[in-house]
């Protein structure tokens, strides 16, 4: 019923329903509505076009076309109904049996469906008509039977998925009977797809009925059906072409409405399952809207960070000022500023949903569709990236900034061997010949310490382990000899035993090639081992940015402190592991003042009044008004441990 309500919010769906209802009613009550008897001949007006007396004209025998369409509709609509009822009854029941029983019953039923679907429907109908001698009911019922194989597949698929849902499995365990499961869990999952299929099938069944009529295999003249009206019109094609318009037009109109209704139904239930987020409508919708914003005073803070770090005489490679990423009306990354020096590694930490990945997607300009990226400044080696067109930016990606993702296997195209995917990147960035690209790709595969590059070259992603695939992905990222490598949780999805290996590889490659590295992670161990600086993000903002060693030794933001306290290794055995109460708020609920205040043990009224700026600390910057209290506490802790 929710489905119905959603459907009735779409004007097009309402229009289609209205047309269908109107036509069906007019045909059912043809004897009341039709202006003439369908057989009455007006011999003075043969093959007339539309006129005041005959709204849709007359046919070769002077019969009123409108009246014949209304009476003929009874035949066509009834035939369609017969097919649809058969289709639903058989398709749904067999589909449920196959989907809920499974096993051998299922595989036999699927085989039968395969066979049935490979026979042309119209031919089947010819056989049936030959055998049963022009029985339209026999033909339409058989058509329903044959077509139900398609519905059966849909119902089976949906009920199979529904059956394996954890909550349905839990219901079984809790002792719900099969019929209760069917009614409570499977019925709601199946109803949307079934209605969609029924609507689409009704259109097809109508076309088939009309086809039979057109071939004069349906009702016998002078009785009318929509199909044989077109056939009559075709016979008169040399004398009056108007006749074609209303006769075929009514079939087309009804089919169009049924098809559109089916599509609207499908959109309705599929949008229910993929709620939230903007859906991808085309390749072009990937292109983000870019906006340059004036630097806000708050952006002065990273300059301070730079100042402190410039004392070490570093050369800045990437400079980010006030980077924001918004998708729809939601700002997911809010005014992030930092820089990365050459050969430097910075880590971005925070819980899930804090905007870490979105920040790097924004940098690379590969955010989800419909995003707006804005920044005051975004430069790479002094070159402005913000002003680049999408095409120009695409040349920067891979060549100067490369990327590896969290899920190594799915980051590779499943249909191409690993080597080709590396060679493809080599060709794209170095413009070498095919054979040269292959040679370089093998070199790269060796450089990521894959023991047998030749063997890996010809492996498909599904034949590789996660660690192997991640090394291939790293090799591909190195193809353009990038100055900056962005690794979005490169070890999270890997087995613990291979995590260290991949991380060591990244560090060694960074050192050999003088690359800079941005590592998105939530692993403090990784951060401590690898990163020169750590950026802590919370709810789309940077809350602290400091050299890793300093940050771990003395966090200057309560969130960093809380995260550090919840590391198991740091807690003495026997002591309950501290956790941060609550969860990261959803982007829509981010307050303009301190976003962590709700979970913070230091929170006071000062925290919830106004936006909190990043301010310099001894070690870096922090977005907290209570930095001094953290420092006092640290001093006190130092005294007690001493």
């Amino acid at each position, binding site marked *: 019923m929710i489905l119905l309500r959603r459907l009735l919010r779409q004007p097009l769906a309402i229009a289609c329903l209205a047309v269908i209802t109107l036509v069906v009613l007019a045909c059912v009550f043809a004897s009341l509505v039709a202006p003439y008897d369908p057989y009455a001949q007006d011999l003075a007006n043969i093959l007339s076009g539309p006129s005041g007396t005959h709204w849709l004209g007359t046919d070769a025998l002077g019969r009123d076309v409108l009246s014949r369409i209304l009476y003929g509709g009874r035949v066509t609509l009834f035939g369609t109904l017969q097919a649809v009822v058969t289709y639903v009854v058989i398709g749904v029941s067999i589909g449920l049996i196959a989907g809920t029983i499974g096993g051998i019953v299922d595989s036999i039923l699927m085989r039968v469906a395969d*066979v049935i*679907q*490979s*026979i*042309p*429907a*119209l*031919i089947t109908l*010819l*056989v049936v*008509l*030959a*055998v*049963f*001698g022009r029985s339209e009911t026999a033909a339409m019922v058989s058509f329903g039977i044959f077509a139900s194989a398609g519905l059966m597949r849909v119902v089976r698929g949906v009920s199979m998925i529904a059956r394996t849902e954890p909550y349905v499995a839990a219901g079984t365990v809790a002792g719900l009977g099969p019929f209760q499961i069917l009614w409570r869990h499977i019925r709601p999952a199946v109803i949307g797809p079934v209605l969609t299929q029924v609507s689409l099938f009704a*259109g097809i069944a109508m076309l088939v009925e*009309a086809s039979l009529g*057109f*071939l004069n295999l349906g009702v016998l003249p002078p009785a009318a059906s929509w*199909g044989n009206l*077109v056939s009559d*019109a*075709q016979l008169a*094609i040399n004398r009056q*072409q108007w006749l*074609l318009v209303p*006769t*075929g037009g009514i*079939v*087309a109109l009804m089919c*169009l409405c049924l098809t*559109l209704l089916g*599509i609207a139904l499908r959109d309705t239930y599929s949008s229910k399952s993929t709620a939230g987020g903007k859906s991808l409508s*085309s*390749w*072009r919708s*990937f292109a983000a809207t870019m906006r340059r914003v004036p630097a806000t005073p708050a952006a002065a803070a990273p300059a301070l960070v730079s100042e402190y770090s410039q004392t070490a005489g570093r050369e800045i490679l990437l400079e980010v000022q006030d980077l924001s990423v918004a998708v729809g009306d939601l700002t997911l990354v809010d005014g992030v500023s930092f820089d990365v020096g050459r050969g430097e590694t910075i880590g971005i930490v925070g819980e899930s949903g804090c905007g870490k990945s979105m920040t790097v997607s924004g940098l690379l300009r*590969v955010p989800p569709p419909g995003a707006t990226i804005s920044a005051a400044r975004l430069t790479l080696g002094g070159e402005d990236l913000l002003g680049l067109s999408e095409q120009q930016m*695409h040349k920067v*990606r*891979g060549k100067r900034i*490369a*990327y*590896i*993702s969290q*899920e190594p296997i799915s*980051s*590779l*195209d*499943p*249909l*191409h061997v690993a080597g080709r995917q590396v060679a*493809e990147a080599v060709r*794209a960035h170095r413009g070498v010949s095919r054979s040269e690209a292959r040679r370089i790709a093998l070199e790269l595969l060796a450089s990521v310490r894959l023991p047998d590059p030749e063997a890996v070259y010809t492996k498909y992603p*599904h034949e590789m382990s996660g660690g192997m695939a991640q090394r291939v*992905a790293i090799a*591909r*990222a190195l*193809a353009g000899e990038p100055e900056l490598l*962005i690794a979005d949780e490169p070890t999270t999805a890997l087995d613990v035993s291979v995590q260290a290996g991949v991380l060591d590889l990244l560090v060694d490659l960074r050192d050999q090639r003088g690359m800079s590295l941005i590592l998105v992670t939530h692993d403090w161990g990784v951060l401590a081992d690898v990163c020169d600086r750590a950026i802590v993000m919370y709810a789309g903002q940077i809350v602290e940015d400091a050299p890793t060693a300093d940050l771990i030794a003395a966090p200057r933001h309560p969130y960093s402190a809380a995260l550090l306290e919840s590391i198991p290794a740091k807690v003495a055995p026997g002591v309950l592991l501290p956790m941060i109460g609550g969860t990261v708020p959803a982007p829509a609920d981010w307050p303009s003042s301190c976003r962590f205040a709700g979970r913070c043990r230091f929170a006071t009224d000062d925290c919830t009044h106004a936006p909190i700026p990043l301010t310099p600390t001894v070690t870096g910057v922090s977005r907290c008004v209570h930095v001094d209290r953290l420092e006092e506490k640290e001093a006190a802790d130092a005294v007690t441990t001493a």
Partner: protein
Amino acid sequence: MLRLVGGRALLALPLLFIVSILSFVLASFAPGSIAASILGTGATPDQIARVEQQLGTNRPVLSQYGDWLAHAVRGDLGSSLFNGESVTALLASRMSITLSLAIAALLFAVVLGIALGAFSAIRGGIAARITDGLSVLLMSVPNFWFATILLAILAVQLGLFSVSGYVPFGVSPRDWVASLFLPVIALMVGSMASLALNTRSEMLTVLKADFVKSLRANGIPVGRILFVHTLRNAAAPLLPVVGLLFVGLLGGTVLMEQIFGMGGLGALAVTATTQHDLPVIQGIVVFYTLAVIVVFLVLDVLVSYVNPKVRAS
């Protein structure tokens, strides 16, 4: 590859068997006697019995089927009940018309449908919405009506094409193309439209995949992302759809042959239907099933070429 083809061909044999036995059994349910329908009303029971004896239709269904099968494997599909012509010869003389129609329509539908769908998935915006809207419209238009309109406008009013008839390729390749043009267009638009919509939605599904983001983030040329990666991944689920479209197109040839006056298998099927000429219909069913099996086989090979996981198993 050879093993795959061989395996699939073996799997297809039972299908042929099932289809043929099914149509045979169905025929046995037919109310009334075939002999009676040949002789027409007014035939005496004696005459009917004699004709039944001649045709062998008075024997049990299974024995009749066995007989048919024994001949069928040797390429003899029996003869027409009406004029005694060999069904095999009938099929052989007419199949080129039907196959020309169905295969040409399939090729056009695949090439144009995928192109339109890819255009819509890549380009987006108003142009794509128009493409999608047109596709839905074309799917809903009855192809026999569309064919008649084409005929009315292009052939009758403008005189651009001959109104009807089929010219064999051997006689004149140019006229062969001209005689096929309208029926092929009318036949394929619906399939083209549905393939366009399918292609669009499959491509959009692939574009959401992780690896597309990785390809974009690593600067792989856009053309390669779209055509080497996205389209190829989309092709795997599209190929079975193409198979089903062919089944539909084969059925559609019946209508096109009728409208354009081409004496192919479809026209034969319609005549045989009105005459209750079951051996002919049986032959046509077997032939169509065979054609579908061959197309499915080709598609299976293509799927295994596209998808390494299928190839491995």
